[in-house]
């Protein structure tokens, strides 16, 4: 794709994402080369460390928003369907028995986009307003 087309493409996408309907939603993002389709249950399994793989067998590395972020609260509630303290208690059991470790966290949408854009195995979630072309949105959740 030459530069001009990609620019047009991004303008179209920008228009698309700036629509009222997408505004202020939670977007789950992966690397552009990641072709997996994920259900809510599958995203939840990856974020709870119950599987370390995407459905196509490639390794999955979940990335979390920081504990203080409002988006994490929304993700915990609507995707994982648990409270923050339930999730922390869950991870404490795994971490202190060597069974697993909680997802790596980043402090901003931009940091998550940068990480996901550079790591084929990564999966993250951000404000839909922050989405850019470096990453691919696989699903959206209402806030």
């Amino acid at each position: 794709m030459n530069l001009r087309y990609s620019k047009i493409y991004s303008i179209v996408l920008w228009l698309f994402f700036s629509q009222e309907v997408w505004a202020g939603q939670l977007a789950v993002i992966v690397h552009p080369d990641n072709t997996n389709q994920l259900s809510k249950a599958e995203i939840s399994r990856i974020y709870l460390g119950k599987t370390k793989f995407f459905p196509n067998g490639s390794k999955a590395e979940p990335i979390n928003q920081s504990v203080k972020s409002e988006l994490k609260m929304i993700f915990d509630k609507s995707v994982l369907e648990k409270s923050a303290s339930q999730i922390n208690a869950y991870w404490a059991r795994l971490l202190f028995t060597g069974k697993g470790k909680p997802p790596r966290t980043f402090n901003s949408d931009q940091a998550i986009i940068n990480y996901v854009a550079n790591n084929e195995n990564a999966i993250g979630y951000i404000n839909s307003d922050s989405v850019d072309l470096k990453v691919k949105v696989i699903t959206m959740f209402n806030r």
Partner: protein
Amino acid sequence: MKISSKLIPYFFLCFVDYSWSITGMSEYNVSGFASFVGGKVISSDTNCPLVANSDCFVADYHNVGIYDKDITFSPESTIGFQISVSSLFIDNPINVIVQTIARGTEEWETSLDWAFIEYELSPTWQIRFGRERIPLGYYSDFYEIGYSYPWVRPPSEVYFWQFSKLDGIKIIHENFFKDWNYRASLYFGEENDEANKFFSELSRFVFFETLDYQFKNIVGLTFESNKNWLDMRAAMMTGELDITQNRLKLGAFVLNDTTVFSTRDVTYGGLSINVDLNNFILLSEAGRLQSEINLRTINTDTYMVSVAYRWNNLTPYILFSSLDSIDEITLQPDKFSTISLGIRWDLSYATAFKFQIDRTNDDSEALISTTTVQDSPRFGNATLVSIGIDTIF
């Protein structure tokens, strides 16, 4: 101050830059947990064999966490630190975990509770070498992580077994099938701990002897499976317990210092079923420990049932637990049960406050013998009030 000076080395952990490593290809993480618990026995009908002229409540057999008439904070307060190291070489996946725990019962001396190297044979198979817990009960592995369960402590009736450190090898397989995750492990090893504290204290007080225990030839299996709201676990274990009794030359019973050796064959089987419907929680566990010494069998049956309800930041709960142990030859029963009422209050994402009242009924038949040590003489009926704060960091 004594306490803080022992913890000083750990404060330096906070200032180390963990981004470096020898190979430049490892990831370091430091994390930890702490519980500060205070308690007081408010009523009791018997003087305790372990605390001179006082009531008592045994909250933790393994670490000899015993409350008495005074408000005390040492029986169950703990602080633990863990360093986890993961190799980032994709074709050489190795994890190292080191966990030390300082306990109020040990005057905040630290002990090395976990230290193992895990090699990932494949994405679903791992092998561990080193020290970890003997995974007898559901809560054995994370007994000290108060933040991870509703109560102040897992019930001592079910967690009465005094051996916990496994030095050995563990093979782990984990995978999932449809909605179900499962994890199976097979382990071999021995407990290489110091003289068993609880039995030693008890026999020193009651029988004027010291005891050395070695728990060896341990072989065990665990199988756990869970889906969203249901969590089940089964465990089995066998092992040999070598006991060395060193009787002291004291009083009329023993004329000279003598040493007596004996071996017990120990077998354990247990089952746990837990339901978590987000608001409503049911936690249950049952087990049998069989101890055989020269064809004489002692069966100890334990179980617990707990119901809790999560209501925003508050989780009130009720817990019932029971231990029933019988020696097939002497027919002396050790029989006690505890009913506990309490509430957990989540103060933040990582800190919870707890308040709990326990009432233990001891229906054991007290028997003082000069030749054999009873696993638990009568401690008496007792009511304990405890408060605690649990955190993870």
